[in-house]
């Protein structure tokens, strides 16, 4: 099992109140996720296995972690 990352989610709503999408920010640590989520009331965050992240997000996170090791 791979180590977890975190995703912050924000619903995107149009002027008529219809949901038109979700914005997600994938980050490496819970502290960073909490920092982003705390800025707006209806943002939420959760842990996510790196293997379950979108491919581009997974690869980018892996590269940055390898670069800091």
């Amino acid at each position: 099992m791979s180590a977890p990352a975190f995703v912050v989610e924000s619903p995107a709503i149009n002027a008529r109140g219809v949901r038109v999408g979700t914005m997600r920010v994938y980050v490496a640590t819970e502290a960073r996720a909490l920092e982003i989520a705390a800025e707006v009331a209806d943002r939420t965050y959760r842990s996510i296995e790196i293997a379950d992240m979108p491919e581009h997000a997974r690869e980018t996170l892996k590269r940055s972690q390898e670069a800091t090791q």
Partner: protein
Amino acid sequence: MAAFNKFNQFVENIAKGVHNLSTGAITVALTATANAPVATNTVLANLTEIAYTNLSARLCTTTSCVQTSGTLRLILADLVLTATGAVAAFQYVVLYDATPSSPLKPLIGWYDYGSALTLANGETFTIDFDNVNGVLTLA
């Protein structure tokens, strides 16, 4: 909540044949908190974009643009923006059509993320466009 708003000129551009939303290069522009879009903006040149250093490509892929029972829905594939280094802070995510030349790069609409976001190296910002309601509907 990230609120989606349309630019006023967009509806006129639709009526006058400026856009082909099925084939146009719908692209995302990012602006900072201090450079908020307003509904009266018409083209990309009206906006002050952030520098895109360390950020991946911003071109969207159109999945479908068809009507059902008289309501057209524009469906876009999820856009994944990855940071390979620090990216300038942004709050507004603007959709525009990069294909038309007159007017050049007309605006469609924008999302307000609600606060400034600065992506760090390794972080990813994705826009998961709704596959049922679409980015926008025309009825």
